[in-house]
């Protein structure tokens, strides 16, 4: 789960990381009110989960009330790389002397948190890494030991931060690490981490990704989910407990098991088709779950054909067939379906489907055959 900038800053503040004061707003009136409370100059910032907000015109400084109104009018509703701005964050303008970079990444390969610090903040860190890899100091922390004071000192010295801020930088890294562990984050990134004219260290931005599997232990974070920013179809799938990712094609996909569904999407693409979604109906899918999943797939008006690719392990093919038959009884789909059933109770599943004789449902024996068939049907070359 990715947090918005201001949600990340509020999370930082709980762990003693200094952030500029600010207020969120969803309307122009709220924004102007917030700006009045914070005082001028202030910064109006679009809250979307995408980089390059500044370049896109989503971050503006307001010198007075009139500018706060103009900027919030322009930014609310703005489209930034396909993300509509529903919310803005108004914060006190900062006096920036230097821009640094700090992050903590859940390093899967090393099986340990990776802490990084650089004096080259305020720009794309991947570009910095490519241009000048030595500009980024990094070290792994033993998760059983935790972040020690020497870790902070070493990073600060190796990154070459101004001497007078070695201690405060080390201290803020320790607090970011504490936030990373306590909130069970997969990523905590501050870019830029600024040194103010008064030589204070502040997090001027916040990018935080939390572990979805740990949200049950953090109800205050789980409540931050912002359905207004979610795609309605993904939201529908989420509410029904389905594992779903929307894609931009026209062939609906349903399978069981994440690996098999990923593979199905690849195979359909190789056959010349364009999948409309990833949907893992899960192990042990019962008939009702299948019916519910079909409704989610067909909620996308772009879908021209649907592929069921099932290899039954715990999932029983007869249950999948019953679910599809029930879905046809309830919603009467107008697009063609291609169904491939293999594995547990496949013979019974195929028999049920054949008996039901559903309109425009095509049985296929193999995964490749099914992929080719659904691509033909989506392209309107039904044979």
């Amino acid at each position, binding site marked *: 789960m990715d947090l918005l900038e201001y949600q990340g800053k509020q999370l930082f503040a709980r762990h003693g990381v200094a952030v500029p004061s600010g207020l969120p707003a969803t309307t122009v009136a709220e924004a102007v009110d917030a700006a009045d409370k914070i005082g001028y100059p202030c910064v109006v910032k679009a809250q979307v989960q995408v980089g390059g907000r500044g370049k896109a015109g989503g971050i503006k400084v307001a010198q007075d009330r009139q500018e706060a109104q103009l900027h919030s009018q322009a930014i609310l509703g703005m489209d930034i790389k396909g993300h509509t701005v529903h919310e803005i964050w108004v914060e006190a303008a900062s006096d920036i002397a230097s821009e640094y970079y700090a992050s903590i990444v859940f390093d899967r390969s090393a099986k340990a*948190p990776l802490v990084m610090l650089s004096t080259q903040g305020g720009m794309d860190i991947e570009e910095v890494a490519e241009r000048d890899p030595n500009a980024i100091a990094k070290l792994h922390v033993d998760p059983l030991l935790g972040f020690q004071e020497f870790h902070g000192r070493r990073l600060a010295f190796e990154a070459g931060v101004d001497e007078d801020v070695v201690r405060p930088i080390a201290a803020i890294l320790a607090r970011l690490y504490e936030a990373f562990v306590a909130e069970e984050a997969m990523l905590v990134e501050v870019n830029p981490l600024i040194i103010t004219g008064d030589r204070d260290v502040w997090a001027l931005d916040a990018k935080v990704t939390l572990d979805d*599997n740990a949200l049950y232990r953090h109800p205050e974070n789980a409540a931050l989910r912002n359905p207004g920013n979610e795609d309605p179809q993904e939201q529908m799938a989420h509410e029904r407990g389905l594992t779903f990712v929307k894609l931009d094609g026209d062939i609906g996909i349903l399978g069981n098991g994440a690996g098999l569904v990923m*593979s199905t999407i690849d195979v359909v693409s190789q056959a010349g088709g364009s999948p409309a979604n990833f949907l893992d109906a899960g192990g042990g899918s019962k008939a009702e779950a299948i019916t519910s999943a079909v409704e989610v797939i067909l909620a996308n008006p772009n879908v021209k054909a649907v592929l069921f690719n099932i290899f039954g392990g715990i999932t029983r093919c007869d249950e999948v067939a019953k679910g599809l038959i029930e879905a046809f009884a309830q919603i009467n789909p107008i697009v063609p379906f291609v169904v491939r059933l293999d594995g547990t109770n496949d013979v019974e599943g195929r028999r049920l489907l054949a008996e039901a004789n559903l309109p425009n449902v095509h049985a296929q024996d193999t995964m490749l055959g099914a992929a080719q068939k659904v691509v033909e049907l989506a392209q309107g070359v039904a044979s």
Partner: protein
Amino acid sequence: MSVLVGKDTRLCVSGITGREGTFHALNNRNYGTNVVAGVTPGKGGQDVEGIPVFDTFHAAVADSGANTAMIFVPPRFAADSILEAQDAGIELIIAITEGIPAHDELRVFNHLSHQSGVRLIGPNCPGILSPGKANVGIIPASFFKEGNVGVVSRSGTLTYQIGNELARAGFGNSSIVGIGGDPVPGSSFIDIIALFEADPETELIVMSGEIGGSAEEEAAEYIAANVTKPVVAYIAGFTAPPGKTMGHAGAIVSGTAGTAVAKAEALEAKGVRVGRTPTETAEIAAQILSA
């Protein structure tokens, strides 16, 4: 021969009194696995169709001589159960549970790596099947027979798909090992490939990877330096969009890292043949075995 589970396996099931735990423990026993005990705190002294239930792993090990654990408890109890099994002296822990918090997995992995003589498989995996000998987990055993192909995979159903195509071509398996789809698997491709390399029955190794992380790239390096047996690979997720978790918690392309293309290229650069579809992967394996 086989790897990890076989006739010497003495299995203790954590969560044996739950619906799924009971179902799969009995299913494993019916296959021939020696299921010697179960653990459910507070239900010690009961039994599940003759399998004695204990309150703690320590009591289960002392009484039954269990050497292998299967973890079937819900995510919030799973890390604790893995650590308890290790503390009680279990050598092989197979964690089926999906949805364990990543930071729990990190602590468990780092703790176990400091202990000797213990191996964790999973979490979020279908378990291990050694056809004709033992089945620990949820792999549908009826599709597989004894043979000389070792399979290691991050995905359950994809393994069944590839294994089934091999079976139709007449080839069986020494063992099938699901290492799971989470960000911090207890055992990696490398760990299991090393076991297959040392297993006299295994003649060919099939590895099935997917997007996210760099375990496949690391395996490619390892294979080039250490493996004499042929390895055939499959990678899922070529068309997965970046930044989206594709079902498995670990299946995510982060920026430009963890893509299927990079993994396939890393493997091919080291001489590992990569099938573009599960079918092609099985065909390549069958070709090599028939040659």
